[in-house]
Each structure stands twice: as structure tokens, then as C-alpha cells.
């Protein structure tokens, strides 16, 4: 999987493309895949998902957060496994 900025994370649209392409699923199901990655039901060999609840105020109003139940996450990154 390509790394967007050189060392340790992917942009969300790149992550969506990679995950949906590898699993041959529709992009509409990406949130489900993300939830399973967060719950460690699915894992990536090199990267681990990291959800951050902060920074919501800095997002434009058009950008909704990623929701797991009532919890809202505003930043999704993949951290390289050590």
C-alpha cells in the first residue's frame, strides 16, 4: 500500500480506494470495513488504524465525522506497525 506523505499514513480517499478495491466491495460499505478495522476484526499487515476524536471544529461544515455509535471521530490515520 502506498504511503501518502512518505512515512506513516494514507489519506482517507486513498484508504477507501485501497480497502474497497482489495475487498472488492462498494465504497458505500467502507464505513463497515472501517468499523471492523477499528474493532480489530480486520487488520492490515503493515498499518494499524487510528481514530482521533479531536479537531472537529476545524473541519468545514460539509465534512461529517466518522461515527461509531454516538462517538464522532474527525481524523482517521493508519499508523505503521512496529
Amino acid at each position: 500500500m502506498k504511503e501518502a506523505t512518505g512515512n506513516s499514513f494514507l489519506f482517507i480517499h486513498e484508504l477507501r480506494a485501497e480497502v474497497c478495491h482489495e475487498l472488492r466491495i462498494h465504497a458505500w460499505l467502507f464505513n463497515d470495513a472501517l468499523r471492523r478495522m477499528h474493532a480489530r476484526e480486520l487488520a492490515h499487515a503493515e498499518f494499524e488504524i487510528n481514530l482521533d476524536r479531536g479537531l472537529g471544529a476545524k473541519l468545514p461544515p460539509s465534512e461529517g465525522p466518522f461515527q461509531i455509535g454516538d462517538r464522532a471521530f474527525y481524523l482517521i490515520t493508519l499508523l505503521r506497525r512496529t
Partner: protein
Amino acid sequence: MHPRAQRVLGWYWNAERLGQLAHDDEDRCVLLGPLSLQQLEHMVTLHPYLAELRAGLTRAEMFVPRLQRPDIPGEVSNWVKEPPDSSALAAKIVERVKDAGGPEIHPTRAESQLRAYLTRAWNRERDRENPTLFSKWAVKTVNDTVARVVADLHGLRMDYVTFRAAFSLLKQLHVACDARSLAGRTGWTLWETSAGVAHERPADKTPAACSLEGPVWIKRRLVPAEEGEDHHSIPLHEGSDGK
């Protein structure tokens, strides 16, 4: 186009225009109007372009390379007079499709199709006075032509606009999906996201009746379950902690 397919296609456009298609909590396409899922499936079954495109994607994913300005041989001053060198363009297409794991394409076949389509596009009346505008048009036209050639190589005889519209419908129906930002590829990747085979039609029923009265046959591919699935072919796999 078959009249019945045309009618159903018309229903779909009307439904979309009237906002009768929506997504439920699980992001599945649901119908708020008089259309049923069977009617939408009916479209996939009967519409020749949709059926062919779905069959093509079932056989293999498609990759349409995206050529940028530096990838196209020659300068704008040359392009004003004639289309870019189709031989060099064909070589790039063949190489990029191969690099993306696509099928082996015979360069001569790709070149001959490219030349024919580009010549036709270049023969159209077009303002060639402004080099910037003409350059943009040329890059876009070359990319549209590349999509048409790749579709043709997958056995789909349709122009770019038709191809794009047919794919858009399949995507809305949750039958296929696409991405333009896959690692290591500059281009458009399309894949099928559903399985299922249309039911065999009894001799005494029309295709429309069979489709509308029968059970839903398109099976959307879901995120694999954590157990009992074969994950060897994908980098996403079960967590190492066994959850």
C-alpha cells in the same frame, strides 16, 4: 435499445430526478418511489450496455490509464495539424495496463483502434486558434479515446460517454465501484461488487415478467466475515489478537 429496457431506463432517470432513490442507514440503495429492486435488476438484465459492462467486469476488473500532458508525444503546434502519434500512445497504454495486472494487449490492435478514433475526433470542426484551450481539449480527447479503446479490448463496443453513463448506473445499483487513487496506478480502476446470475427464463414468460416477478438475484458483496473466509488474496486479514 429494447423498448422495454428503454422504458425501465426512463423510470430510473425519473426516479433519480424526483429523488426517489436514497440510501438507508447501512448505505444501501433503497427506493422511495414506485420502482422495485426487481425493476432495477431488470434494467441490468435487458439493457445491452449494462449487461455487457457487468459481464465484462465479472470476467476481470478494468483499468483505464490516465495520460497526462507530458505522456502525450508531440507539442500543441503539432497536435493542431494532426493527432498525436498513436503508436507511442498505444505503447504507453499497453505498458500501464500490464503494470496494473491487466490483460496483455497486442500493441498493433490498440494502435489501430486509437488511430481510427483519434482521426475521427480530430476531423471534427474545432477552434484551433487558442493553443491552451486546444491542448486541454487534446488531452481530454486522448483520455476519452483511451477509455474507449480499453473498453473495446474488454469486448465492450461503446463510446466514452456511453461507457461512463453505463458504469454510473451500475455503480448506483451497487453492482460495481471504481477508484482513481489506487497506489501505483494513474488511472481509473473499475471492479464488480456483486455476484449472482439472473434466473433462467421459462419459455412462457417474457424477460420483463420473469425479472419483475422473480426473486432478487443480484447479491451485493459485503465486508468479509471475520471467520471462515479466505483472506489469502487480500492484504486485509483477521487481527493477530484473534478478535
